[in-house]
């Protein structure tokens, strides 16, 4: 038995991006476009269970949105000219609006979709606003779904979207795809939003769940869409490579009881090897386009080193250290430096790793970051300094709220208790 509401939701998910993109071409305002599209969805939810899903759902939704648009045009004009007659001008405007919307649906073009994504990720918005709006207009997620993904109330999320739309309208952000140099700059904002969505899914910062796969899938889909729409942009392919390669480990990152399994202990036969190929192909493409030295490409190249190694022991750690050095040169970050210290520990031994790590200790950004003591504990344990390792694990435990990570740390602590 096919559940009609789920069927409607699925139709919405695949049609909404182009629908909103098409309407936005006419309204030049994605907030209004999104509201009109949403009104159309409400109408569909009322009528389709009775009448069945129409042959051309996108056309149906566009017609419903058009009706709404004309209604609101008429209403706003009526307020303006309370006493005057609704003259020919209004009729003309209505006809123009109606024709433009018919035309928009007839040929929603790639540029419409790009424009939609670039506007939703506009730098004038807060990062949270960009993420929420992008998931809403470019991934077809409902407010409730986004709220659930980010563990905030539906009301909070609704306000976040409302504010984002208001900001765009107030700042008079034109709904357009930037060109030339501006495209590069704005693309960075788009890609960072996509990667934040991915990461939110990949490593949940708080809460019970270690990963929320649907968010990863939404980000991957956005990435693939962008690679299709902007095939000459190396950074797009590099980010796609990074996400595909990381996502290829999904099945191996969780043990039978949902516990986290870290890279060295992962069963590599569970890695999705076809997805690895896809990621490698995207990385090749980024490098061919001359983007091999950019941040996403270097990060992808690091993940690719792991993907190429049949076992953890076969990993080319020297190359990973080299890639981290390159990454630190272009985007110095304490987290990257921390990862580099882990790689140094693997390539040159735990003592060298500890030296690299301790060089970072004064870094204020790492003061409350649980991975610093956790990594330190690993290195100390390898050097046989178990009492110090236990101390570090206790510190790490106090710093994380993620239940799965806490489990992982407690397990290590238990193992360390029987040493020395």
């Amino acid at each position, binding site marked *: 038995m096919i559940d009609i509401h789920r069927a409607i939701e699925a139709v919405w998910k695949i049609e909404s991006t182009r629908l909103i993109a098409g309407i936005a071409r006419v309204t030049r305002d994605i907030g209004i476009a999104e509201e009109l599209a949403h009104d159309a969805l409400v109408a569909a939810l009322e009528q389709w269970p009775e009448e069945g899903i129409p042959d051309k759902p996108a056309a149906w939704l566009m017609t419903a949105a058009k009706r709404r648009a004309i209604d609101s045009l008429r209403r706003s004009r009526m307020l303006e000219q309370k006493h005057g007659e609704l003259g020919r001008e209004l009729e003309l405007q209505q006809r123009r609006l109606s024709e433009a919307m018919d035309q928009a649906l007839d040929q929603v073009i790639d540029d419409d979709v790009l424009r939609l994504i670039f506007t939703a990720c506009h730098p004038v918005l807060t990062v949270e606003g960009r993420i929420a709006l992008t998931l809403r207009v470019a991934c077809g997620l409902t407010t409730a779904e986004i709220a659930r993904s980010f563990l905030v109330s539906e009301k909070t999320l609704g306000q976040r979207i409302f504010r984002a739309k208001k900001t765009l309208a107030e700042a008079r952000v034109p709904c357009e795809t930037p060109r030339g140099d501006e495209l590069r700059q704005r693309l960075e904002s788009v890609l960072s939003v996509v990667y934040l969505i991915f990461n939110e899914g990949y490593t949940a910062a708080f809460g019970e769940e270690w990963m929320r796969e649907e968010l990863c899938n939404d980000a991957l889909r956005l990435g693939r*869409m962008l690679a299709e*729409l902007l095939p000459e942009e190396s950074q797009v392919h590099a980010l796609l490579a990074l996400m595909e390669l990381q996502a290829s480990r999904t099945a191996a990152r969780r043990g039978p009881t949902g516990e986290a399994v870290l890279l060295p202990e992962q069963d590599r036969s569970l890695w*999705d090897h076809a997805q690895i190929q896809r990621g490698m192909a995207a990385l090749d493409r980024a490098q061919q386009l001359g983007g091999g030295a950019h941040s996403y490409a270097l990060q992808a190249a690091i993940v690719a080193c792991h993907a190429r190694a049949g076992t953890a022991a076969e990993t080319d750690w020297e190359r990973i250290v080299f890639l981290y050095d390159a990454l630190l040169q272009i985007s110095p970050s304490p987290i990257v430096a921390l990862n580099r210290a882990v790689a140094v520990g693997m390539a040159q031994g735990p003592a060298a790793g500890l030296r690299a790590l301790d060089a970072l200790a004064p870094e204020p950004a790492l003061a409350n970051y649980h991975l610093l003591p956790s990594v330190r504990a690993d290195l100390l344990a390898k050097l046989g300094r178990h009492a110090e390792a236990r101390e570090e694990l206790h510190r790490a435990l106090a710093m994380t709220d993620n239940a799965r990570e806490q489990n992982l740390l407690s397990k290590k602590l238990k193992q360390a208790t029987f040493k020395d």
Partner: protein
Amino acid sequence: MPQYLVASYFPDNYNPSTEDEAMVRAIDELNEEMIAAGVRLLVGGLAPPSQAKSLRSQPDGGVLITDGPFMEAKEHVGGFCILEAADMDEALAWARKGVIACRARSEVREIPYSSLPSGTPHPSRQHREES
């Protein structure tokens, strides 16, 4: 993300020359849309069932080859699409569009094991493909 086979069934006497311009355009547009959404992995159109050959293994270990489709029916698979979708609901939503565009009937099946990008290799191959 899981992969799905959408197999389209056409009547045996199907004549492709009856496809009008509007239908060709609708199919084209749907293909473009599926590529842009990143869901289309592979599509194929098949030669008519009259050109099919069927094979059956025999008890003596031999193989019997006969002309024509394996099953006698009025409709046969005429084309297929392999797509990647979040779940069966989404696959059905795409298949629905396919049915409208191709004016055909279709069947959707999940593909748990596949050698296509992002597919999961068959369990018997998982260890081998790793090396």
